[in-house]
């Protein structure tokens, strides 16, 4: 009887507060006391380079931890609007009682990253989603590992390296990081300290736009690997960075028939709005019905119907919101106002939204 008390109590509370979820009451008292929502409070803010901010978050009790290499969704409110972006924790993987360390690089057109770089402060509470992603260290830790990262792609692989260190790994690791200039090399001090304290770690930082160094510089070239990590063929390689670096390294591994030893994840740069005045192009994908159509410039509702789907709709003029659905990715144009929307995972009204380029919609 006594052991059933907590679940009985929670059903009474939920029945009493219906139809509103319990958290809709608690958040008005303290956003960190949550019934089911996962949130995190910023407990530390560091700005190591001009373009980055490193946040340490203390999550609520719903946090179940993360595996090195995974990412989380972080959401924050800017000018009244909640924005959500994916970030990979940079600290060693940990369980439910651990912190989350995020390093966020402010891209020139990164609305959220620039906001966080400029305004994030200790005490801020942000929305979180549980960690997810398949780019992780295998359970059987590799005896030899090569980590290659570029720019802000450093965070998931640094997390992997730090995890190996925390586990007192019995093997070797080469860490090659590409940064534009020394001023952009976030975590340079940590990497050097890790290498100094752990003889099995070999760290190399390569500057792509800075030639005044002893070692190699410039973008990825095969010699970087053959010279800095000569035993790459025996190692498991973990790669994360911008598209150019990813493509070059993948090509290198494919040529040597080493695809199976290469694990990678692309971090997506913020999508840039295509020019709406250009001729229409792209593919409109309907995520939950596993269909797609060549974008013909009509509204998404019309194109979905032409593709044989029957999404819910009402007024067909943008007033009733019957047809609103989640846009997973891509850029859409409001046909009434001409406004474009490049954000992912947002609700849009199908009857007044036309795709600009590739769009994935959850219908």
């Amino acid at each position, binding site marked *: 009887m006594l052991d059933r008390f907590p679940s009985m109590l929670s059903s009474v509370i939920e029945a009493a507060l219906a139809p509103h979820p319990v958290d809709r009451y608690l958040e008005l008292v303290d956003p960190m006391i949550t019934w089911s929502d996962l949130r995190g409070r910023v407990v530390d803010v560091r700005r190591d380079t001009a373009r980055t901010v490193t946040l340490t978050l203390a999550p609520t009790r719903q946090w179940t931890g993360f595996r090195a290499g995974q990412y989380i969704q972080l959401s924050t*409110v800017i000018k009244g609007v909640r924005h959500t972006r994916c970030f990979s924790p940079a600290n060693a993987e940990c369980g439910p009682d651990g912190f989350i360390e995020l390093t966020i690089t402010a891209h020139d057109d990164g609305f959220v990253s620039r906001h966080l770089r400029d305004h994030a402060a200790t005490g801020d509470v942000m929305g979180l989603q549980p960690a997810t992603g398949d780019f992780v260290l295998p359970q059987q830790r590799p005896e030899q590992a090569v980590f290659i990262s570029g720019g802000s792609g450093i965070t998931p692989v640094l997390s992997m390296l730090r995890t190996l260190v925390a586990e007192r790994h019995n093997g070797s690791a080469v860490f090659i990081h590409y940064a534009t200039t020394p001023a952009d090399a976030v975590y340079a001090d940590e990497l050097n300290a890790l290498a100094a304290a752990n003889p099995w770690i070999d760290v190399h930082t390569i500057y792509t736009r800075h030639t005044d160094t002893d070692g190699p510089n410039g973008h990825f070239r095969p010699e970087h690997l053959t010279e800095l990590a000569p035993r790459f063929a025996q190692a498991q390689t973990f790669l994360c960075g911008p598209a150019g670096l990813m493509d070059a390294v993948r090509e290198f591994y494919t040529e040597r028939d080493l695809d199976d030893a290469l694990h990678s994840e692309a971090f997506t740069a913020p999508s840039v709005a295509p020019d709406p005045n250009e001729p229409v192009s792209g593919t409109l994908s309907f995520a939950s019905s596993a269909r797609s159509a060549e974008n013909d410039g009509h509204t998404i509702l019309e194109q979905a119907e032409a593709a044989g789907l029957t999404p819910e709709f009402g007024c067909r003029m943008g007033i009733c*919101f019957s047809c609103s659905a989640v846009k997973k990715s891509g850029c859409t144009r409001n046909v009434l106002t001409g406004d474009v929307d490049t954000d992912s995972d947002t609700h849009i009204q199908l009857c007044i939204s036309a795709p600009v380029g590739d769009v994935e919609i959850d219908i």
Partner: protein
Amino acid sequence: MQLSTSTEADDKSTGSKKTELILSYEEVEALGRELDELRARIVADLGQSDRDYIYKIIKAQRGFEVAGRGLAYLGWFPPAWIAGVGSLAVSKILDNMEIGHNVMHGQYDWMREPSLNSREFEWDTVCPADQWRHSHNYMHHTFTNIVGEDRDIGYGIMRMDRDQEWNPYYLGNLLYASMLMVGFEWGVMLHDLEAENIVQGKRKWTDIKGLAKGMWRKASKQVLKDYIVFPALTGPLFPITVAGNVSANLVRNLWTFSIIFCGHFPSGVQTFTPEECENETKGQWYLRQMLGSANITGTPLFHIMSGNLSHQIEHHLFPDIPANRYPEIAPEVRAICEKHGLPYNTGTFSHQIFSTWKKIAKLSLPNSWTEDDDNFSVKVERERKGVA
């Protein structure tokens, strides 16, 4: 625009004079552009203060709810019981009107807050949110005041317009309206069933199975909460708490019915025929929303407690603009109306509600027995003239 006075054939029996204002096609399009510009200006300005506003209202609503539930423990003491009923009624009114109605219109979707998204929100009343979004957001807001299409004209049980054919059933108009007022949340719940169409055989029972299931699911939770869980939590005060919760729901019903009926049924509100509204332009749609709605004047607190449906005209023009913006938009809308010589139907609550009940009473009788109060109407030239 041009004015004409005529004795309409329909009204020969009463001999009433009708004044018609005829707007040209271009004039209505100009009106549409002015309203589009107004809308764009407000949408571009939405931000943190609108977010703060809705959260302030939510906080107040939760406060009244907690106070109301808490006071139930003092239900044996009549003043406390009355205060508890008042608090809970205020909480439910805020929840249904300024929060629920407006959030479900998509007014706060731009905030991308899952808990305030039009498709995810559920409100503290027996009507399931998804069904209400269909009957209200789509049916009523698209076909506003088109007799035979807008089911809010009489809710299928009353005669609310002279163009609805009279029959002896409508002698009970006042009774039906009173019953709907008392049980308004249940009337709203049943609205999407289109019960009169089932009675007339236009709708099959199988069509409503899914709706009925949704109603059962939602209403049972509401009943469980108000009439079982909370009363049980007050132990020996169970019956007193039930009485309190019934009263709070009743107060909410009387109030919401009254506000909502003032929105489209006072005298001076125009109705339309389906033929008039075929292939409407956006400008013509705007005009119909303006002519088919009526405002109520009042204090800021009155506007909040009415969910800003006291700004029914602004709400019908811009149903997805956050309601807290309606008071600031209203003078501009009124100025646009005046510029085009159009009526802007507004009045005190007592004036509008009296006018509404008078109409309900008059419409229980055949047209030939009563006089048409509405002797001013606006017509639109549907086609562009002088196109070379």
